[in-house]
């Protein structure tokens, strides 16, 4: 249990065993469920590229607020747009949301964290304090700023979420690096005069990769929730591109008369977040054999 370890889900101390123990490759419960859900979403998103029952943005006055029926399997929203097609296309937005947010957070946060871990004297304080500052700039403010400067869209919203998640990645990468740097074989490599960046690439990165993967899947879930919240406040995906968050926001006023319109997107969001969180837990248990139930 290293002190000041990252509070993020991916606890660090399982690290000692990653390098040494023969991490038994075994699919545990969480991993299986997580992968199936995420797989389902990816599959739906891919299918939506080639086929959706209707064009999700096509407004059809006659089909307004249709209950689920043969023509519209999950019914139609107040614009007469097919709910199923929107959900399928929404899956695409959700994946896009996650990839952008996690990508940005990982690409910026990880090197920062490694830097902080490897150069404790000057880099550590700098990175940690800038982390605090980043934490103080709420993702919401960033989303509005980027939306205003570059035009509100899913991309700008997710850039903001990504940057707001940088501290989490930096923190994990830092504590992971601190752990690895104190390892004997790394000390040996440093003693042998290996340049720090070679060490970072050969030793540090592969070792904290599992933690980063776990954090990425959790961050994915958080990004999906953030998109829903931003849409609720009117800053999320640009209409008419379907997004689960905006579907939920638009159907909110119909909660009493057509509750299903809120149920589908709400369910989809919860399922996606659940899927990514389970994937996170599953990966954490998978990479950390000591939690292996069978032993």
């Amino acid at each position: 249990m290293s002190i000041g370890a990252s509070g993020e889900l991916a606890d660090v101390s399982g690290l000692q065993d990653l390098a040494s123990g023969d991490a038994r490759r075994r699919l545990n419960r969480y991993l299986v469920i997580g992968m199936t859900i995420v797989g389902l979403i990816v599959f739906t998103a891919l299918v939506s590229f080639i086929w959706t029952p209707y064009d999700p943005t096509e407004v059809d006055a006659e089909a307004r607020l249709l209950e689920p029926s043969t023509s519209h399997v999950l019914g139609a929203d107040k614009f007469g747009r097919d709910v199923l097609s929107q959900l399928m296309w929404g899956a695409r937005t959700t994946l896009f949301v996650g990839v952008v947010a996690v990508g940005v957070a990982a690409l910026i946060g990880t090197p920062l964290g490694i830097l902080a871990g490897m150069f404790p004297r000057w880099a550590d304080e700098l990175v940690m304090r800038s982390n605090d500052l980043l934490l103080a700039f709420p993702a919401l403010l960033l989303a509005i700023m980027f939306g205003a400067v570059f035009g509100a869209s899913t991309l700008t919203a997710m850039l903001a979420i990504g940057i707001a998640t940088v501290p989490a990645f930096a923190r994990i990468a830092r504590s992971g690096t601190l752990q690895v740097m104190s390892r004997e074989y790394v000390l040996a490599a440093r003693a042998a005069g290996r340049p720090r960046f070679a060490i970072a690439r050969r030793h540090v990165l592969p070792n904290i990769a599992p933690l980063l993967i776990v954090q990425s899947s959790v961050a994915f879930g958080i990004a999906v929730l953030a998109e829903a919240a931003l849409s609720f406040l009117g800053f999320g995906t640009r209409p008419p591109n379907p997004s689960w968050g905006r579907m939920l926001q638009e159907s909110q006023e119909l909660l009493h008369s057509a509750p299903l319109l809120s149920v589908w997107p709400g369910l989809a969001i919860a399922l996606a977040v659940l899927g990514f969180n389970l994937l996170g837990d599953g990966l954490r248990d998978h990479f950390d054999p000591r939690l292996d139930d069978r032993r």
Partner: protein
Amino acid sequence: MLPALLRRTAVFLASVVVASVLVFGFMAVLPGDPAEVALGVNASPEAVAEVRAEFGTDRSKPVQYADWAGGLSVGDFGVSYVTQESVGTQINERMQVTLILVLAAMIVSLAIALPLGTIAAARHKKASGVALSAASQVGAAVPAFLAGILLVAVFSVQLGWFPSSGWTPPDEGFGDFLRQLILPAISLGVVEGAVLTRYVRSAVLEVLREDFLRTARAKGLTPNQALVWHGLRNAAIPVITVLGLQLSTLLIGAVVIERVYVIPGLGSLLLDGVSNRDLLLVQGVVMVLVVAVLIVNYLVDVLYVVIDPRLRRS
């Protein structure tokens, strides 16, 4: 301890200054002119020029920054030219509302996460442990505003137990205040609690593997006693880190719940401020946020030292 304290305050001040430059830069780059926003569709070019002069936004950026930062250093946030009210008082009022809401939510969150997280970890093999862990997964997957909307639909519209919205300061009517606080605190607390439960579970799981727990049992403590007397305090460290993070993000993150329950909190103030291009207000709010987050982090570090003797420099 003195040099550390000195260094820490120096870093604190440096961070605040950097933050002020950052937020000022952000607002300077933000398109949309406050004067135009104030005059709206009834703006004539001359009027916009006059209002801009009145607001002082026609001065050069560095001058504006110096004026604002100068005021800030003596605690004067300036007067918002959009609402003509002192930014300081607005932030103060709204900060109290947000702090009460967030702390109430934190209490609900801890009341859920500590017991459930511990049990989920202690029985992570048995069905009940897995069920608890699954429940926390689902809880953490629900958007907070959805929880809010559903709670309102059931508990205030249907059952009429609680008001659906509004806020009464505690000193103006404690009964109303409490009844208006419950639903928003639960909406926020349940979702945050579900997230916290998973961290508590992971921290307790981690601690269960520690050798000193086995020593405790070898001393004659039952597994429960070992966990409670020895385990929980060690599990507190990562949980406190997460609590700090949650507290920092909720100061503004609660805006979603403020919007559903119409609570005049800091988040709504910030949101309105940005859409009205109320530069002084937004800059003021962000500065307060930066200081709040730095204080929270400082408290978290202090808690670390209180809990963990290894960190105390003898």
